[in-house]
């Protein structure tokens, strides 16, 4: 029996299972939290009981972090060059030798109650793309619970843009369907099925010919997105065993967002750029593309969990017994940085968004459990996938805290004898040097970020460009407050069984900048 036909395939949390399966899954849910909290508690304890060991551990860890930063920066720099190349590339000669007329692009835009300027900008960017819009099916995936205003806006969009695409479908995901969690996954899964019933089947379009771009409502495509995606789709060995990952750049409102929001958003972009050069570690994130055939075979995105964007990759990975991959297309899509009404609401929004992204840790128990149950996945693939995921979430939750907060702990808890050792004096000096060298990498970050900035709006003064460079000194704060802490909260919630629901990031733009 294929794994996708087992009851384990669509498990959202331990409570969906019973008996020993439930016990095992529950312990796997606890695993990331135990590892992360255990690491922090371990350092606190050894700082008191064996400060010499703790100090050496911290210095070695800082050194490891420095080398890791250099290694990852190299990937960032390469992807920056590659993305620049992809943006400037002439795709027509490449596509000229390929047959692609049969392909249909389906773009799913899930929305709840976002404003007209957000929705319309995403739709018009599809029209502005260098691709025949009569070959694009747009699915505006609304929520019934969002009410009449949302529906009216959707109908207005259908009226205004409907005839400009191959098809423009509005779907309203019904509220209160048993077994579903309110969120993007259940919405776009419903939208995909409706588009099959109402568009693909009546128009006799083969599922294998449809490339689905599952976007957020604020996703704005760059001109050659569809050409780049089509070329990748047609040139990979098996497009139905492949997902396609663009690079999310949070540029739409970058000049309006506060510095903290910009740094967090650009850091997320940088991480995705780094991962693009490490495809074996890449899972789909945020806006991504998949063949409709692949989606249909597994029943679309999972409807009973939060992190549908990455889970869809793991669903397909275990369904194909590990024979599934992500192709990083090194081509950007533009999205919104966090921006709410006022500074503190924006800070809260950033935190909640980061916590939701960190809730992707719910994929760890799913993946490990699938690796236990699905014997057909090769062992080396299981090990690589599990270790990559576990290490990723552990690093996210612990590394900034270990580097920026716990580095001083042996000095505080170590006692008089330790404080009179040369090691105790060297600890802040050496960690300071290592941090200093690591922070030199921020110059690279600033340069990369600058190169992707949209032109400064006339409403913003020149000094805002200087702020764009200076903002990177906030990195130690942002990766701790908006990286490690929300990740720790998410893992602790999973550890305690306090499951999270889906939180919709407010999409807000200053009208003057639209």
């Amino acid at each position, binding site marked *: 029996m294929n794994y996708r036909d087992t009851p384990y395939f669509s498990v959202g949390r331990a409570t969906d299972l019973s008996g020993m399966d439930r016990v095992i899954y529950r312990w796997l849910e606890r695993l990331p939290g135990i590892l992360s909290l255990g690491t922090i508690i371990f350092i606190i304890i050894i700082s008191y009981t064996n400060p010499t060991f703790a100090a*050496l551990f911290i210095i070695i860890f800082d050194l490891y972090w420095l080398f890791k930063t250099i290694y990852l920066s190299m990937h960032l720099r*390469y992807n920056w060059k*590659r993305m620049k190349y992809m943006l400037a590339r002439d795709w027509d000669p490449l596509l000229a030798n390929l047959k692609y007329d049969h392909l249909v692009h389906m773009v799913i835009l899930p929305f709840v109650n976002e404003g007209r300027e957000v929705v319309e900008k995403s739709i018009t960017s599809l029209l502005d793309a260098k691709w025949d819009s009569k070959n694009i099916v747009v699915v505006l995936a609304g929520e019934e619970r969002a009410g009449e205003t949302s529906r009216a806006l959707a109908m207005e969009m259908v009226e205004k843009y409907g005839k400009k695409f191959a098809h423009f479908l509005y779907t309203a995901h019904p509220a209160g369907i048993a077994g579903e969690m309110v969120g993007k996954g259940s919405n776009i899964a419903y939208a995909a099925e409706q588009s099959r019933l109402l568009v693909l089947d009546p128009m006799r379009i083969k599922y294998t010919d449809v490339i689905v771009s599952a976007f957020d409502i604020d996703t704005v495509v760059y001109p050659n997105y569809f050409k780049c995606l089509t070329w990748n789709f047609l040139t990979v060995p098996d497009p139905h065993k492949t997902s396609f990952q663009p690079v999310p750049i949070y540029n739409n409102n970058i000049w309006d967002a506060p510095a903290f929001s910009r740094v967090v958003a650009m850091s997320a972009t940088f991480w995705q750029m780094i991962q693009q050069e490490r495809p074996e570690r890449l899972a789909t994130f945020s806006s991504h593309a998949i063949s409709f055939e692949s989606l249909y075979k597994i029943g679309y995105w999972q409807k009973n969990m939060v992190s549908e964007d990455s889970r869809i990759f793991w669903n397909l990975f275990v369904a194909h017994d590990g024979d599934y991959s992500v192709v990083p297309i090194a081509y950007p899509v533009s999205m919104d940085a966090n921006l709410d009404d006022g500074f503190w609401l924006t800070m809260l929004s950033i935190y909640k968004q980061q916590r939701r992204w960190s809730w992707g840790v719910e994929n760890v128990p799913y993946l490990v459990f699938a690796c236990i149950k699905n014997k057909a996945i090769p062992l080396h693939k299981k090990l690589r996938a599990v270790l990559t995921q576990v290490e990723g979430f552990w690093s996210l939750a612990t590394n900034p805290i270990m580097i920026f907060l716990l580095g001083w702990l042996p000095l505080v808890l170590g006692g008089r004898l330790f404080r*009179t*050792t*040369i*090691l105790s*004096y*060297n600890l802040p000096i*050496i960690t300071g040097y290592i941090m200093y060298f690591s922070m030199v990498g921020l110059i690279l970050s600033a340069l990369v970020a600058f190169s992707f900035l949209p032109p400064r709006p006339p409403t913003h003064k020149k000094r805002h460009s200087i702020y764009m460079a200076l903002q990177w000194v906030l990195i130690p704060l942002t990766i701790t407050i908006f990286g490690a802490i929300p990740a720790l909260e998410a893992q602790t919630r999973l550890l305690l069984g306090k499951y999270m629901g889906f939180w919709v990031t407010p999409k807000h733009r200053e009208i003057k900048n639209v």
Partner: protein
Amino acid sequence: MEPLSNKKRRLYFYTYLIVFLALLPVVVLFVQGYRLGTGFSMLRVGGIYVGGVDSDVEVYLDGTRQENLKSLKRGFFVESLAPGTYSLSIKKEGYSQWDKIVIVVGEKVVEAYPLLTPLKIEMVNIPKQVESEGGFFSSATSTSFVDNEVFAEVSKLFEQGTTTQSIKRQRVTIWSEGASIKYRWEDDFSTVFPALCGYQNCIATSTVYVAKENINRVGFYPERNDVVLFSLSDGVYAVEIDSRSPQKIVQIYSGKNPDFRVEDDEILYIKEGEDIFQVEI
């Protein structure tokens, strides 16, 4: 343009790994004070930390000014010193020089908190009465005086406390017994400050200083719990608890049977007869 090739990534990864592994023992040994001595022998160095001083002080070791100092907390760290005995001097323009003989041992850092006092200590007399600011009916040609509220407030400080009581601050208690000044550490030695511990052993109770006559009063120096103020019949003095040679003792005030008080651990007042002075140290 192809993604970064696996070959290139592996090359970078293993290069960094080798450099990391090569650096690891060097860093681990270095931070613990190991250095390469003559003839490739391993030497374990120590250091000196000079705390509680500003950046404008000069640090001398065996008469040589130290240039390669690391700023740390509020002080300086002199690192990579071979084990041995050093003559440490701290100089600051306008202040009396501070000297100490320190013994540096491998792996350890000797701490020193210099007592730097101005060569010319400023005394501000607090007048008993001050000129009246005048009112609506005051004459422009005559001057009237009123009692100074500051003087009255400071006078109250001198009415408090007995001369023999012990004083405790941050786990250190000091008191006088005849001509002796004593201290007691009120906690375990895991958190004791270095002045009480000398080079090896910490002493819970000991004599700080024996004066030439009975001591009238003891108290802590402003913002220091390792320096004791005491008054004799001929003046007010400050002495370090740190008994490492030479123990610095400074006369703060010269006069006849002066008394002193420290307000809020910040301001030193000295009273002689009916006069009260605020002392700038």
